[in-house]
């Protein structure tokens, strides 16, 4: 292997920042997945990556400079790149035709040629079929089993994982169009849309909700029913709660990736009766209104 400093094109006195900069510049140019048609890119990239493994690590670099290790130990093991799979006949859900779909749409001869070529492949994998599915907000948190009715009258059972995020795609292997020969069927790709629930808002694993409470509940406290995605629960509003007071229902949010659940934050909102209430007016007029002015500093 060549001298790693030469490979990265830096001086032996280069700072670690310069080494990283030089490596990034080369890696962007040479990464095999960014050069799917360049067979030589893999060897070149391997050399550059090997040099960076050595010089990008302060300890290894020191030992290399001292002559304790040589560059041959820096070679990276065999690595499979995405390009080796993305181009295979086996097919995958990431394939995209948007780079040439306009040619096919505008040129019948080309479309026909592409169609015939595709059909001529003896072991052709079936096409992926794209569907969309709308679920309720609560279902996106708790997960659900849904049945999708297909245009041809068939059905597809879809398991919605708990904590699904709007726009997530669910892949069902082998549920796409049939293939020919030894090529298996394609996949079904289902984009899931979450119908918003006016009561809830989601923020990562947590959800939030604004809960109207009455004046007596705010002043005196009490037990109230609170909706959660898994059904109503009872929550105790503490005495002297105010609009904006936020309570936390632990574990009532979406599932967390590492285990456990997020929380539901309940923001209280004190609401007065819609119609004027003479009894309330009479009561408040007797209350010493001078004692509290929320617009004055220090009011609490």
């Amino acid at each position, binding site marked *: 292997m060549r001298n790693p400093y030469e490979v990265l094109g830096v001086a032996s006195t280069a700072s670690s920042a310069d080494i990283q900069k030089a490596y990034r510049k080369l890696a962007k140019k040479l*990464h095999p997945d*960014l050069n799917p048609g360049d067979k030589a890119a893999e060897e070149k990239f391997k050399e550059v990556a090997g040099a960076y493994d050595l010089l990008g690590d302060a300890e290894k670099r020191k030992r290399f400079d001292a002559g304790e290790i040589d560059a041959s130990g820096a070679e990276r093991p065999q690595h499979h790149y995405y390009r080796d799979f*993305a181009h295979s006949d086996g097919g995958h859900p990431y394939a995209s035709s948007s780079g040439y779909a306009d040619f096919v749409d505008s040129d019948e001869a080309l479309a026909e040629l592409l169609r015939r070529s595709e059909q001529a492949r003896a072991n052709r994998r079936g096409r992926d079929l794209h569907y969309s599915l709308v679920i309720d907000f609560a279902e996106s948190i708790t997960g659900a089993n849904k049945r999708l009715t297909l245009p041809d009258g068939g059905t597809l059972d879809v398991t919605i994982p708990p904590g699904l995020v709007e726009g997530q795609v669910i892949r069902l*292997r082998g549920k796409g169009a049939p293939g020919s020969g030894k090529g298996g069927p394609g996949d079904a790709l289902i984009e899931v849309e979450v119908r918003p629930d006016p009561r809830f808002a989601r923020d990562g694993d947590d959800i939030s909700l604004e809960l109207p409470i009455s004046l007596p509940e705010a002043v005196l406290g009490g037990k109230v029913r609170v909706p959660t995605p898994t059904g109503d629960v009872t929550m105790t509003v503490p005495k002297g709660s105010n609009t904006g007071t936020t309570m936390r229902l632990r574990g009532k949010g979406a599932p967390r*990736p590492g285990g456990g659940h997020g929380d539901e934050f309940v923001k209280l909102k004190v609401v007065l009766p819609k119609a004027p209430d003479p009894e309330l007016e009479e009561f408040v007029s007797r209350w010493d209104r001078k004692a509290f002015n929320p617009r004055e500093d220090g009011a609490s």
Partner: protein
Amino acid sequence: MIMNKKQFLSSADIEVHTLEFWIEQQWLIPDQTTAEMSFSDTDVARAHLIRDLKGDLGVNDEGVDVILHLVDQLHGLRRAFEQLHEDLRRPAG
């Protein structure tokens, strides 16, 4: 090879919350035919690409989105080109 979530995390050398984020971003689309997610070698290779982009190449999340989209289009084009090439070489009739 088809692998479960745990095997995938170890092959791709990433943490579970990273995986969840990548799935949310649609950078990875695991197979969910059964209740347990499953992953292919293609998914592992794609995960390595994402890791290289974010780590060694210093690309941010928006950049990863754009790059994956373009790389997928490039492979689609290469495939169509290859098909045309085969068709043109095949004797007529």
